């Protein structure tokens, strides 16, 4: 028999006090500031913004610090914070063609307008631990050069020949969905899927993208381009009758070009997958574009044979706040549930033992 109990207030209060102590760590070391996190752990901040689906570098840095560097905890905190704020409206769509490009590479064209701009990349580093970073040594200023021509979008180059599908349009009369306003429903349209993928867990999307490369729903991808940089966010002000700029956000965009499709009605052309993510995160943007393409099975009449093509599977499990909530709730008290199960298994065991004893008696009798 189980009787409901209350308690734990003092233990919880002391646990949280202990958490605050451990978060601060050795008091003889200086405490890290939010600006230091923003400046020196910028990609952690970017990941938290992207997966919390809230662009605010300072708040994301605060969340990283509060969570002791636990990314999913930080994402959870920031996602929870956004529910406390009113929604002012929807921005005009950002224009990535006019991005202030800080990095742009294409794997499909060597010489293209704007060139291959490596930017601040980990690529071509040797991934060797750098002991010089243990010391707080001087860091050289970046090299500078006269900027070149406008950084043209790769999809526009191929588009000129009609060899690639267009940017992507929803069916006539489609009303744009918003995951934060309506419950999820399947089948889910591509605009909603992209919203879900943009805030999806980087590790989950990376694994799914990897699975498509290994043969589980192959899409034969090429990186048309990856670009990182600032875009302007504009909001329409009804009081004035025009849209005004609110400032700039840094985003990463990936145009994945995939093997061609064609039919009796349509000439063969390359298909595309699209990735767009808050902050600097090309791993996430690339993964997103691979998964976006894999999920477009209905548009290309492809058979769903792999997990990455199954939109209900992918979208339902991409959100790490939901995932961690459900997995981690298992550690909370389930005393009553477990007592019920225990009671049940005891009864089953009694029945089993009784049945076994009965049959053994029967065998004994038969032998006699």
């Amino acid at each position: 028999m189980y009787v409901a109990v209350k308690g734990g207030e003092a233990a919880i209060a002391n646990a949280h006090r202990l958490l605050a102590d451990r978060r601060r760590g050795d008091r003889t070391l200086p405490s890290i500031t939010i600006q230091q996190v923003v400046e020196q752990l910028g990609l952690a901040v970017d990941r938290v913004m992207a997966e919390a689906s809230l662009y605010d570098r300072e708040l994301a840095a605060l969340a990283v610090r509060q969570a002791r560097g636990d990314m999913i905890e930080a994402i959870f905190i920031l996602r929870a914070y956004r529910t406390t704020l009113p929604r002012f409206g929807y921005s005009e769509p950002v224009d990535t063609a006019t991005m202030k490009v800080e990095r742009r590479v294409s794997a499909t064209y060597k010489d293209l307008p704007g060139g291959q701009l490596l930017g601040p990349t980990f690529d071509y580093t040797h991934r060797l631990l750098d002991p010089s970073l243990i010391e707080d040594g001087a860091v050289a200023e970046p090299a500078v050069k006269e900027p070149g021509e406008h950084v043209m979008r790769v999809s526009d180059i191929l588009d000129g020949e009609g060899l690639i599908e267009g940017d992507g349009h929803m069916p006539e009369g489609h009303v744009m969905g918003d995951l934060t306003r309506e419950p999820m429903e399947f089948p889910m349209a591509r605009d909603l899927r992209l919203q879900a993928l943009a805030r999806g867990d980087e590790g989950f999307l990376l694994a799914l993208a990897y699975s498509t490369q290994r043969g589980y729903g192959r899409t034969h991808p090429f990186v048309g381009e990856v670009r990182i940089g600032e875009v302007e966010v504009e909001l329409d002000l009804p009081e004035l009758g025009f849209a005004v700029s609110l400032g700039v956000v840094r985003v990463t965009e990936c145009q994945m070009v995939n093997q061609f499709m064609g039919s009796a009605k349509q000439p063969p052309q390359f298909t595309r997958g699209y990735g767009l993510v808050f902050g600097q995160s090309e791993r996430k943007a690339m993964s997103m574009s691979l998964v976006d393409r894999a999920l477009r099975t209905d548009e290309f009449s492809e058979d769903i044979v792999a997990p990455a093509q199954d939109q209900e599977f992918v979208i339902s499990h991409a959100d790490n706040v939901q995932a961690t909530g459900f997995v981690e709730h298992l550690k909370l008290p389930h005393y009553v549930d477990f007592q019920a199960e225990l009671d049940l298994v005891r009864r089953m065991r009694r029945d089993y033992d009784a049945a076994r004893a009965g049959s053994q008696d029967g065998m004994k009798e038969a032998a006699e």
Partner: protein
Amino acid sequence: MDAKLKQEIPPDMARKEGMRLLARASFEELNAAWAALAEKPDVSPVRGPETGLVMVRGRIGGGGDAFNLGEATVSRATIRLSTGEIGHGQLLGTDKQRARLAAIFDALFQRDADRSAVEALHRTIASRIEAEDRRTAEETAATRVDFFTMVRGDD
């Protein structure tokens, strides 16, 4: 009918550009311009300052139909000057003080007597942004790959 009327009024491009710059002004820039005003205007709040969210949209494939990318924090304020001009300030982030100052300068921009002072502030902000963008573009340009063709061994 309303929509048609709205379309016929050309947007005030100078004000729009001014608001774009004010949204990116630092607190120091706004505060210095405020301190430099010979006569401080009489300001009363109409709305805010308040912080909320704007859902940032992207386009499928970069140029296709729109989708919701994720939200951003936005602070905004609307003020009225004693002379009647209404000013709006709105910018990314949670800095309500900057939003309020931006609204005041948006209102002052509409007042002939203060317009040149606000334009001076616009120029200060614009030249800083331009210098920052220029610097970033130059740093990026230095990482551009210059391909060269290797000489073939059988030549």
